[in-house]
């Protein structure tokens, strides 16, 4: 997730201060990684420095002054560019899962790797069931369903990958030990 772009996206509908942004984030992306208040203000500071947002006035709602921010023209342009940019198609290849599977296969051997993969597969299947339950809940919003779809699609890919990777690396293991 790109926090600056998410913050700019939330500002696209009109000026907001930090507290509103945090709340809007939690409503719009309830299943995303939680966004801390500190992160919101730090991000606003960087966007302000780069001219992507400007202060749009202050208000006081029974507490200290709060500064509202609004998107500048260059902020909007940056946001549009980000939205049009295709993400790298293999963002997870450097992830923990690949590292652990590969290191286990190479260091601990096929049996240990198989055990790890079986446990990992079980965890993936369990998570896939959880997400399926989320999206089939009659109370689920379209946002919930779309977020669950994304998770399910990636888990599905991981599950297929888990099986075929073990297939390939087991062959490689035999080849290496035969030398």
């Amino acid at each position, binding site marked *: 997730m790109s926090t600056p772009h998410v913050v700019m996206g939330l500002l696209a509908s009109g000026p907001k201060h930090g507290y509103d942004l945090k709340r809007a984030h939690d409503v719009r992306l309830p299943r995303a990684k939680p966004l801390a208040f500190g992160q919101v203000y730090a991000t606003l500071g960087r966007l302000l420095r780069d001219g992507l947002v400007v202060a749009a006035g202050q208000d006081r709602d029974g507490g200290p002054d709060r500064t509202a921010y609004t998107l500048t023209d260059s902020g909007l342009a940056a946001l549009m560019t980000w939205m049009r940019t295709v993400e790298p198609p293999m963002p997870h290849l450097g992830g923990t899962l690949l590292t652990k599977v590969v290191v286990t296969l190479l260091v601990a051997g096929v049996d240990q790797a198989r055990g790890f993969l079986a446990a990992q597969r079980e965890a993936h*299947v369990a998570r896939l069931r959880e997400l*399926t339950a989320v999206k*089939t809940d009659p109370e689920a919003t379209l946002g919930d369903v779309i977020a669950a779809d994304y998770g399910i*699609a990636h888990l599905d890919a991981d599950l297929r990958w888990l*099986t075929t990777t073990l297939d390939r690396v087991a062959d490689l293991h035999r080849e290496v030990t035969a030398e």
Partner: protein
Amino acid sequence: MKAPQKDAPLRSTSPPGPRGFLQARGLVRSYGHTPALRGVTLDVREGEILAVTGPSGCGKSTLLHCLAGILRPDAGEVVYRDHRIDTASEGARAALRRTEFGVLFQFGQLVAELTAVENVALPLLLAGTGRREARTAALSWLDRLGVAELADQRPGEMSGGQQQRCAVARALVTEPRVLFCDEPTGSLDSLTGEQVLGHLVRLARDQRTTVLLVTHDPRVAGYADREIVLRDGVVDPTGLGAAAARA
């Protein structure tokens, strides 16, 4: 038990004991010299949705056909509520499929000459239900599947998803205790397949119908409560399919 013994009684297993709901014990089945099942043992629990997954050719469809009493295994037992299915007469097995079991295949296999409501009513008519009552029940199930407006259309006039919804209605109209599904959304695009599956699972849970769901797709298996993986005709305890065999 609803009346599977209409044509010929199912033989009770002996000795009776603490048995499960639907069980396979050491099932073996070959096609010519090609083995499909090489000793499958599993318990299906009442009310659960159980996914049977595995790569193409692993024997999962054969297992479903044996459990549903469509195929006889070469060896092993199929026990449904303390009754052997594998040794039951053809008549008893057919009666079981009319009353206790429902079956849903990848392609709905609706009768092309009949309208949707006639297709859905068919299992009830075959089971002896009166024409008017069968039609009323069929219309109710079409409504639950969201395709009541298609009642008088024939399969050729419907989309694949609409046909499969009618097939789900037909499979559930007898309110079976067990529903056997073989790649039920395999011929549909992902969103349509998801809608059909969503209906199927929701209605099955409402009816407390036990579902055996054969699929190669992990996303479809995600709708199940539990999953077993078949590999080369046996249950693979690791769930890793071919990889474990080749390692």
